[in-house]
Every structure is written in structure tokens, then in C-alpha cells.
């Protein structure tokens, strides 16, 4: 891998566990991820693959007492986040790293006007700005996300879902952060609004040079929107690379290939789609070999015992024994 420059976000061997009374749930296992300045990376995987856990780990907002970061490191601009004092984390959240949640219906406080909620981010992080400057910034931000500033004295319940998500985006980007964690920002919206919201995030991202980690289970969104993609399965990255390399569909991890098999292809006249057999492996079980081997068509004997290493070729990484000695992908 090209290690010459320091990436914006570097996650190495991150392991996150949820410890409940009954069991330890291994949500994220030994996960590596890199994100450069201005890059848009898609994080794809099934429900329960650990995508949201990863985002919350970066902000150090895992559920208290239950969620534990058991190992690894998360560096932001070369600084270790896992050892950062809480006071510095407070200053980082919202100003340098923001997050957008899946459901805009519930991520706004119903008792404050939307203008106040955007203003609060400025109050928290820019105490040196005057009231007029802050108000002007709120107006500017609302205009940017396509809501007339005259509506800033309205309450969240007076807006539709798509408009609320625009407000949420305005809150997330008003401090012009370097990194935006977008956790399925369009899943709760209908398809026509989805495209508008993605377009809006793309425009603002270009304007503010924000790096985006787009968490989604929609490969179409990734192809449309991202530069690079990481495919996550059972808390591990099984494949990463540029969108072009991965979506070429020539050389893929069997899991990624399985995901592609679940999408109807317009050019191909398939009578049936090919869903991946079986279910997501139990996150309470620690795998000795490959976590995907139970569902894999190409599983070999050693897949059950030896965990595959990440095999990288021209920035395209696949964690599978099938690609061990291949130089051509």
C-alpha cells in the first residue's frame, strides 16, 4: 500500500465488542480502513456487519458500558483518537468530524426550532463569532441545502422527511468539517428524494472539501457516488478498492460477487436473482478461519482453519485464499 502520506483517517486492526450479560458480540474484528482528504469512500455490507459501530467508534460514542473498543487504533490526521481526552473529543465532534443519521424524523429535537439547532453547533464550536455572524451563517447554510432561511423559526414537525434530512445535513456541515460520517443518509427516504439528497451531499462535499464515509447497503449508491469502496462482512473488510476496480466484476471476493448477484442486471435476461445462501454468521462466535466460509461456494478445507490475508494488487485488496498467488487481478 502507498504509505507515504498521512491519511485523514486511519483505522488499524480495530476490534469492537459489545459485552452483554449473556454473551460477547464481536461487532468489528481487526478492521483496517483509510480515508484521504476529500475522498468519498463507500462502506458496504449487510445489516449487522458493524458499519454503524465503526462510525460510532470513530466518534467514541459507542453505547456506554456495553460497547468496548478491545484493540486497534483510530488516527485522525495522525493523532490517536482512542487516547484523546474527552474534552478534546467534544471539540472535535461536530467541528472536524460530523455524522448524519439514518432517520431524519428522529434526529432533530422537536422542542427547538431548526434555526436554533443549526445555531447550536456554531455556539458550541465558534464562540468567537458574533450573533449576527452566526445568524448570517445559518441563513447561508439553509440556502445551501435548499430551505428558505425564512423557515428557520419553524419546528421540525413542520417539515417533510426530505427537508428534515436537509436540515440535518446543514447541521452536520455548518462547521465545515473535514470528515463526514453519513450513516445510511437516504435509507429512510423515498427514491426520488434519495437522489436529491445524494446530489446535495456531493455538491457540499466538493464545496467544503469534506471527506465522506458513506455507510450504505446499496451498491447502486456506491457506484454513483463514491471514489472508493470497502466491503464489510462480519466486522471485517473483505474487499476494498476504487469503485472502478471493484465494479468491474472481474475479480471480486466471493461475498462481493454474491452481493452483485443480488442486483438485477438490465442487460442480462436472468430468470432469477442469486441471493447469497445462508445467513450472516453469528457475531457471538469467534471464527478461526474465514468468516464467510459457511456461505461460500468456493470454500476449501483451509478456509475453515486459516484466516485469509489481504491480497493487494494495484490498490485493490481482497481477503480470500483464492487470490493468494494471483498477480493478475
Amino acid at each position: 500500500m502507498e504509505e507515504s502520506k498521512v491519511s485523514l483517517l486511519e483505522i488499524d486492526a480495530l476490534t469492537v465488542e459489545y459485552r452483554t450479560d449473556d454473551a460477547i458480540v464481536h461487532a468489528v474484528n481487526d478492521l483496517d480502513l483509510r480515508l484521504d482528504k476529500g475522498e468519498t469512500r463507500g462502506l458496504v455490507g449487510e445489516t449487522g456487519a458493524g458499519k454503524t459501530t465503526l462510525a460510532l467508534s470513530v466518534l467514541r460514542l459507542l453505547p456506554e458500558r456495553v460497547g468496548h473498543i478491545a484493540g486497534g487504533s483510530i488516527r485522525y490526521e495522525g493523532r490517536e483518537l482512542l487516547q484523546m481526552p474527552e474534552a478534546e473529543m467534544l471539540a472535535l465532534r461536530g467541528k472536524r468530524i460530523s455524522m448524519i443519521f439514518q432517520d431524519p424524523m428522529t434526529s432533530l429535537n422537536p422542542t427547538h426550532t431548526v434555526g436554533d439547532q443549526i445555531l447550536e453547533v456554531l455556539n458550541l464550536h465558534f464562540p468567537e463569532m458574533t450573533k449576527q455572524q452566526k445568524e448570517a451563517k445559518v441563513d447561508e447554510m439553509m440556502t445551501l441545502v435548499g430551505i428558505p432561511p425564512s423557515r428557520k423559526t419553524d419546528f421540525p414537525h413542520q417539515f417533510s422527511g426530505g427537508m428534515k434530512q436537509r436540515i440535518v445535513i446543514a447541521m452536520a456541515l455548518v462547521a465545515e468539517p473535514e470528515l463526514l460520517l453519513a450513516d445510511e443518509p437516504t435509507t429512510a427516504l423515498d427514491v426520488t428524494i434519495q437522489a436529491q439528497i445524494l446530489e446535495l451531499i456531493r455538491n457540499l462535499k466538493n464545496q467544503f472539501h469534506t471527506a465522506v464515509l458513506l455507510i450504505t447497503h446499496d451498491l447502486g449508491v456506491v457506484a454513483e457516488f463514491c471514489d472508493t469502496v470497502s466491503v464489510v462482512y462480519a466486522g471485517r473488510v473483505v474487499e476494498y478498492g476504487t469503485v472502478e476496480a471493484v465494479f468491474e466484476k472481474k475479480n471480486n471476493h466471493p461475498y462481493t460477487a454474491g452481493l452483485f448477484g443480488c442486483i438485477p442486471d438490465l442487460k442480462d435476461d436472468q430468470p432469477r436473482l442469486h441471493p447469497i445462501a445462508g445467513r450472516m454468521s453469528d457475531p457471538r462466535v469467534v471464527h478461526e478461519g474465514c468468516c464467510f466460509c459457511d456461505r461460500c461456494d468456493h470454500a476449501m478445507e483451509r478456509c475453515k482453519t486459516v484466516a485469509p490475508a489481504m491480497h493487494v494488487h494495484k490498490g485493490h485488496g481482497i481477503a480470500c485464499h483464492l487470490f493468494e498467488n494471483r498477480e493478475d487481478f
Partner: protein
Amino acid sequence: MFKRKKKSLSEYSMGELVMFRFRKNKLAMFGVFLLAAVFLAVLLAPVLSSYDNVVQMHVKDRFTSPNGSYIFGTDEFGRDLFARVLYGGRISLLASFAIIGIALVMGALIGGAAGYFGGRVDSVLMRVVDMLMAVPSTLLAMAIITALGNGVWKLVVALAVSQIARFSRIVRSAVLTLRNVEFIEAAQCYGCSSLRIIVKHILPNGIGPIIVSATLNLGQTILSISSMGYLGLGVASPTPEWGTIISENKANIQAYPYLGLIPGICIALTVMAVNFIGDGLRDAFDPRTKN
């Protein structure tokens, strides 16, 4: 002609909106009016009557029905019921507000800490509250008064302690339901500290049920003080208190119904007024009832 510029609804702040909606509620305004009238009468007691009349016995005039010189009539000792009801109201109202105030603050501290911090803090605090709840509140109050002795302020302590458990539970559940709401998580994500989250995001959303239950309990507390007075605990005769007045006249109520009716009506009107206000506040605090 100067025409007052009318603001559109969206220009009002949250507080203004709550007041606006509350004022539109006729029953709630009636409650405010009624409670204000009771307060005014009680505050003006020295003007309308005097404390001498509370204890002074006009034996000649005993059991006088309400008339010009004794507005509410007199009891079996010939004491002026009007003065007794006015001064009694002072104790009833002051004590009930003090009780709710103490219980609310203590309950908010205990319930808030338990709900927000969770874990061991929650377990320990809630087990203590459970123990308090296992004893019926009247029985608990009676036990405390028996231990402390009679007196208005001892009654206040006893009834407040017996209500702390209830408020702790209400505040805790309000905090708990809000703690995991996504906008609280979002607030953490844009850098809010715990204290700011509690004050700015949890309290305004949870204040509705807390205020409503506080006002509804206020009515209940006025009744509790009166029942304790009726049982001879807390406020003892000859110090007047609405429940005590009914209690000391209970032998003569059948023959002279006004002796029970007048203090009874005072209790009922005050409790009703408080309940109307509580309901009005609940509706006003709920942003979804906005029109």
C-alpha cells in the same frame, strides 16, 4: 389609527408559544383565575379578617349560620369560620407547594442521576426508591410524623419524603426514554457535553409529564394534608387547616352542613383549579398540539 403589527405564528419563540397555547385554553385560564382568587383571599386574610378571630370564641354566637357579621358562620365554640378558612388556606397552600417543591427537586436529582448515568448508580438509587415505594405513602408519612412529632414543617417533611419515590420514577423514565433517542445521539455527535444535553435537550422534552404530574400531585397533596389533619396528625387543632377544620366539626356536620361544606368546597375548588392548570400546561408544552 395605530394598528398593532401582528406577528405570524412562526415568529414566536418556544416559551411564547407555550404561553400562547396555554392562554387559548379556556379551562386552564379558568383554573389560573380560580387559583389566583384563592391565593389573593388567603394573602389578604389579615385585611379581610384578623388572626384574633381564628381562635376567639364567641360562645353566645355558636352555630350561627352564615350571615352579615359571620360570612361563613361559626362553629361549636363560636369561632369565626371565615377567618379559620382563610388562615387555614395559608397553611394548606404553603405546605402543599413546599411538599411538591421538595419532592420534585429531590426526585429530579435522584431520577435524573439514575436515568442519565445508569449502571450501578441507577441500581442503587432505584432499589432505595423501591423500598420507599413498598411502604404505602400515607403509612410512611404517618410513621415519619409519629417519629418526628406533630407540626406543620414535620408534616411537610413527612409528605415530601413519601412522594420522592414517585417523582424519582417519573423523572427517571422521562430521562431514560429520551436518553437513547436519536437526536440526543446526534447532539453528542456535534459536540454537546453531558450537562448541556441534560439541560438543553432532555429537560425541555421531558418537562411536560414532570410538570403535569407535579400539578396533579399538588391537588392530591392538598387532600393528603387535609386527610392527615383529619386523622389528627400534622396540623393539630386549634391551628386551622382545611382538613383539620372539617375534622373538628365532624360531629356537627349533619346538623350544620356549612361547617363541612365550606372548607370542603375550598379544597375541591383549589384541587380542581390546580388540575385544570396541569392539563392546560401539558397541552401547551406538547409541540404537536400546535395549530
